[in-house]
């Protein structure tokens, strides 16, 4: 922790960055904090409890402005950063990407390849809480699964915390806000909620870092992150996606290649 604080203070003091995005102690759990002065670096913490995906702030224009910033990225935030770079939403020359390894060592990444190399060797943080439910879902028949999700999603009241917490939901206008035509019914009801969550899952396909921030953000505790979690597996299997790589901009669901095995589009 001291090493991280020292690093942050140095970056701010030298003027290399104008802001450090990190975690501080919160009411019950660590929360995001934004440090602009070396004196405040002592607030920074980083440990296993720091699971919120801070990459979500990298596209907040009113927060970032034209500043160069440093971010203490968790394992999944590193994946999100690669994807945001792929989608040209952030620039690496405006960013100092830091993480703290399992050995408590502060790492500063110079290139996307360095990030990929780290992600390939560092242990993927386990989410024990999800394991039982994933197994239960996998054991269900499609009809049972439909029933499970209909019941869960019927509770959603559309506060859009899932969208707000997601680094990949950076659109200035969300499809649920489109009303000419109205693709998704914007009110809360079982059907309208299913429309929203299926749309979100489809929009996340091939882009999701599998960080679980959407599910963690849900005030009702709906396990919506498991929708995109399952899709990550599907896309990995069928589209040779590697969530640990920055790629050239091909999207799983919106890029056609002549050598694709499906022929329905020809």
């Amino acid at each position, binding site marked *: 922790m001291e090493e991280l604080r020292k690093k942050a203070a140095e970056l701010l003091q030298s003027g290399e960055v104008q802001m450090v995005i990190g975690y501080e102690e919160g009411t019950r759990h660590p929360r995001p904090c934004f440090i602009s002065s070396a004196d405040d670096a002592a607030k920074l913490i980083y440990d296993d409890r720091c699971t919120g995906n801070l990459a979500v702030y990298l596209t907040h224009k009113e927060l970032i402005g034209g500043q160069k910033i440093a971010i203490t990225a968790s394992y999944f935030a590193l994946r999100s950063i690669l994807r945001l770079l792929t989608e040209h939403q952030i620039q690496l020359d405006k960013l100092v990407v830091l993480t703290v390894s399992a050995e408590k060592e502060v790492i500063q990444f110079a290139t996307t390849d360095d990030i990929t190399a780290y992600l390939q060797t560092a242990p993927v943080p386990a989410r024990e809480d999800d394991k039982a439910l994933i197994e239960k879902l996998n054991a269900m028949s499609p009809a049972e699964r439909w029933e499970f999700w209909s019941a869960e999603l019927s509770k959603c009241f559309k506060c859009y*915390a899932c969208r707000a917490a997601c680094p990949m939901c950076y659109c200035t206008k969300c499809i649920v*806000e489109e009303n000419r035509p109205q693709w998704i019914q914007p009110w809360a009801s079982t059907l309208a909620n299913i429309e929203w969550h299926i749309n979100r899952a489809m929009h996340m396909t091939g882009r999701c870092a599998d960080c679980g921030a959407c599910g963690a953000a849900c005030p009702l505790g709906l396990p919506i992150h498991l929708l995109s979690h399952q899709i990550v597996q599907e896309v990995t299997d069928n589209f040779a996606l590697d969530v640990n790589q920055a790629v050239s901009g091909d999207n799983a669901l919106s890029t056609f290649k002549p050598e694709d095995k499906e022929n329905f589009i020809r």
Partner: protein
Amino acid sequence: MEKRFITQASINRWLTKIVNDGKHLYAPVKKGDRVDFGRATSADDIVFDHIQTTQSAKSVAFPRTDVLFSYEKEKGKVQLENADLTAYPETVVFGLHPCDAAGFNPLGAIFNWDYKDEIYNARLQRTVVVTLACTKADEYCFCTSVNGGPGNTAGSDIQLTPVKDGFLAEILTEKGEALMKADEAAFEADRGDVKEEFLVKLPEKFDVKAVQEKLQTAFESPIWKAQSQRCIGCGACAYVCPTCACFDIQEDAHGTKGKRLRCWDSCGFALFTLHTSGHNPRQTQAQRWRQRLLHKFSYMPDRLSVRGCTGCGRCSRACPVDMNLSEHLSSI
């Protein structure tokens, strides 16, 4: 006001009678690993020892989606049909805490500010409120800082306070008395329990009058930007709030017929104030956060003589990024 004593077993019997009478029983029930309001079919479903439900009880009078009217076009004529105010179920909200019952006052003030909202009023009129006074609290609770308290009876028709071997029952209104009479034998004579001895002690976290005073001149303060930096602009705080009343109007249209709907909305959303022209008077999250606090702690007290906060702490528990309201208010 009348005081009685009732045992847990008698409460269960009384509630069974209420359900058998055809009333909707809406109470804290288990939802996964959480406790939230839901339809209870018997007393066995009800959780009595929760600190706070995820959502407030406001949806009994202000549901997340409500039909205002329906219409049908035929041969150039439009048939309008208002929502049937007599169709709302007779409802008993049971087991909510005093902060939730208190929320119906600011909510009602907004829904009756100039136009008297028939739908909200009709729904509330058919609702009886039975609160459970608080014997415990957590670090998010701050009712005592906003003129409430763990035994506050405002908005309650009946209040139950857990005492030794049962509950002290305060029958506070005619509605409450009528509900008691569903099974009056369940209620024994008052045993002289002193309510205050059983209530949780919750020290004040801030001086709300002083906060309100400071807000008068805080519109241009840099604190809004500083406090709102981590806010990600979702509506979780507003949707779990017992007093947030903002709504959006939507059209569920199917060819020549449809319904006009009222749905929850939040001043935290960027879209909330976006004009058709593209101009947005609240362009930044800082402005939207300022609006949230000023509305609750300055505009509502000034214009409606009620505060838009009952100290239930739900916004802070629900917030994905720990925008702790009492902490922010204390730091103004």
